């Protein structure tokens, strides 16, 4: 046991000595939270708009002011032809072109049908659709404000209640995702690399002939990373709570216990990859493409799983991060107790078991 502790100490010194790695390990989660919190958003404001106003009368001018006053649209240029508009689309300077037909004011007061064209750069389909919806809504509200008619306004009000996340705070979604991602990154990637490194440099053989049991060697190498990633998880939860007011409604102890469970999955994956790779490059590429990408894409963190094609939904069932994110959300946002998350935790536990057995078998084949 004494020699084991000494070994962990040695490994910890290795990590602490490398200050740049430490900075990045702690800087990364903070940077991610800040990026997600402040820069990555789907809501739009200041969309660049060009107007092609064929009538140029006071009322059409009012319509344009009405559109830009909302803060959603920013008028970049008034164009005089469709070709000019096309050029602006080509450079990407403008995303929406509004075409107002001639005699706008006259037709408006004569109660005629006026069609306003909304031309969007649909290479970004979702953005184009959102712009069109907003612009037509603004145009309808302009009509309501300016038209005189004797007919009652027929409208349907939709009273919407957002359950569990009433103000639609993005942080409720990304904080759990960032935790899942960071733990996978540090715990799985870093461990696979440290072990692969010993192999590549040939120092693994030196360690193996030492009186320490091979399992203890692996454990000693990974322990500092477990501690590091756990601290990182705490930092992200803390930032979520303090900056973005993401609550932890359920039991904190349960949440942290299950975080450790997920850490073990990541760890097992890291060790499995390291037993399969002989160089750090291989270990890194395998981790990148089999762990990190799937964790970002198929965990439901950024893209909703339910909208994906069937075969991806099936693949997503073996992504540990998917279950961990569901557990996090249930405990943090819904205040779920153990019973509600027991099933998902069971799946994670099963993954730990299977992965460790696989890693152990690989390990034995190599170091017998």
């Amino acid at each position, binding site marked *: 046991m004494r020699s084991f502790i000494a070994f962990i100490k040695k490994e910890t010194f290795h990590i602490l000595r*490398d200050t*740049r790695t430490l900075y*990045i390990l702690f800087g*990364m989660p903070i940077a991610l939270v800040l*990026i997600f919190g402040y*820069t*990555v*958003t*789907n*809501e739009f404001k200041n969309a660049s708009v060009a107007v092609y106003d064929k009538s140029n009368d006071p009322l059409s001018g009012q319509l344009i002011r009405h559109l830009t006053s909302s803060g959603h649209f920013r008028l970049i240029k008034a164009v005089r032809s469709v070709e000019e508009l096309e050029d602006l689309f*080509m*450079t*990407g300077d403008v995303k929406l072109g509004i075409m107002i037909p001639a005699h706008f004011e006259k037709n408006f007061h*004569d*109660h005629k*049908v*006026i069609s306003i*064209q*909304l*031309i969007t750069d*649909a*290479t*970004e*389909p*979702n*953005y184009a*659709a959102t712009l*069109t919806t907003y*612009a*037509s809504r603004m*145009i309808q509200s302009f009509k309501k404000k300016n038209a005189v008619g004797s007919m*009652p306004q*027929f*409208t*349907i*009000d*939709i*009273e919407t*209640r*957002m*359950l*569990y996340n*009433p103000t*639609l705070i993005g942080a409720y979604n990304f904080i759990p995702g960032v935790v899942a991602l960071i733990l996978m*990154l540090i715990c799985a990637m*870093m461990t696979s690399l440290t072990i692969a*490194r010993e192999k590549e*440099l040939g120092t693994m053989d030196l360690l193996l002939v030492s009186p320490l049991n091979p399992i203890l060697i692996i454990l000693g190498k990974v322990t500092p990373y477990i501690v590091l990633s756990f601290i990182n998880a705490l930092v992200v939860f803390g930032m979520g709570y303090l900056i973005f007011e993401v609550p932890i409604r359920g039991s904190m102890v349960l949440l942290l216990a299950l975080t450790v469970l997920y850490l073990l999955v990541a760890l097992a994956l890291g060790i499995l990859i390291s037993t399969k*790779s002989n160089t750090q*490059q*291989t270990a*890194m*590429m395998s981790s*990148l493409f089999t762990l990190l990408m799937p964790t970002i*894409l198929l965990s439901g963190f950024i*893209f*909703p799983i*339910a*909208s994906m094609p069937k075969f991806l939904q099936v693949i997503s069932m073996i992504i540990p991060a998917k279950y961990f994110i569901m557990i996090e*959300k249930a405990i943090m946002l819904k205040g779920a107790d153990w019973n509600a998350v027991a099933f998902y935790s069971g799946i994670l536990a099963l993954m730990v078991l299977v992965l460790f057995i696989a890693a152990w078998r690989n390990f034995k084949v190599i170091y017998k």
Partner: protein
Amino acid sequence: MRRLGYIIRKEFIQILRNKAILPLMTIVPIVQLILLTFAADSEVENVRLAIVDLDRSPASRLLIQKITYADRFIIEDLPASVRQADFMMQNDDADIVLTIPGQFEKHYLKTGQGQLQLLVNAINGQQATVGAAYLGTIIQGFNEELKLEVTRTVFPAQAAGPILKTEPAYWFNPNLNFKHFMAPGIMGELVTILVMLLTAMNIVREREIGTIEQINVTPIRKWEFILGKMIPFLIIGMILLAVGLSIGKILFDVPFRGNLIVVFAYCFVNLTAVLGLGLFISNISDTQQQAMLTTFFFVIIFILMSGLFTPIESMPEFAQYLTIPNPIAHFVHVMRSVLLKGSSVTDISYSFKVTALLSFIFNTLAVLSYRKVN
């Protein structure tokens, strides 16, 4: 010049010899491209909906019919009471509950005001909230239809006031195909990541396993060494782009409206910038682990702020400036503009210039930071 040829040959031998890294460099990115394009197709579908119809009138039936026709929703159930629907929500059997209150139609005809209630499970992020937005659009369409019917029978045509019709025109992508949007961007991203990671780990690897000493005692010059390291990866990156483009064409039928030479020319400039950054990181790192982590730190930030998944326009202003030194942001922009819109060199000249400048800066740093003797 002969020396440069030798160094390039050495690199190629080393790359091709490594049986483990070769598939990771070729097959895996392609699989990623396919999977990613499918996964990132963020058209929201299969939203699970429960409808509580307490009105049971022609109008409410019409609404339900309209929702059924839009294929975005799966109508899970038509529970008889609000309580039953709430229960479904709690068990996570429904994303949205729509309640049509009793006397909905009667009230609408009499006062011109209708009321509907939506309960949205906002925890699932996009699925439910985007679903609710779709539902809102359907309800507005339903309102227009109902209104037209009522006004036609009750009111004379003139009293209706002007009608402002909005006609959407979706240029370059009339079917709003999301895969056409994602695939080019992802190609750019994957090529960049792969090249940057491989170069970043390259020189530091030689240093870590000691082979750099052997190179250091040869008469090779600094720039020859750097170029020798760059050219192989440049070639690999270009080949990968060619393969990616073919797959995008064959599998997703991505349109090639612009000139492919422009795409490859830009890719060349972009890769020199990325290679420079990778080599610089490699030079200032002591271990491969450190190099990888540093690269990762940049790559993740580059990707998230590249406009690949969320439009750059939606970012706050300070963040938009931060995308200027981001090679992935330019790559994604150029790929989309040239392939989907057919932009010419002059249209994207800004990206070309900025990337060339970045390339110059990164490569200068790479050459300056490389030392033969410690």
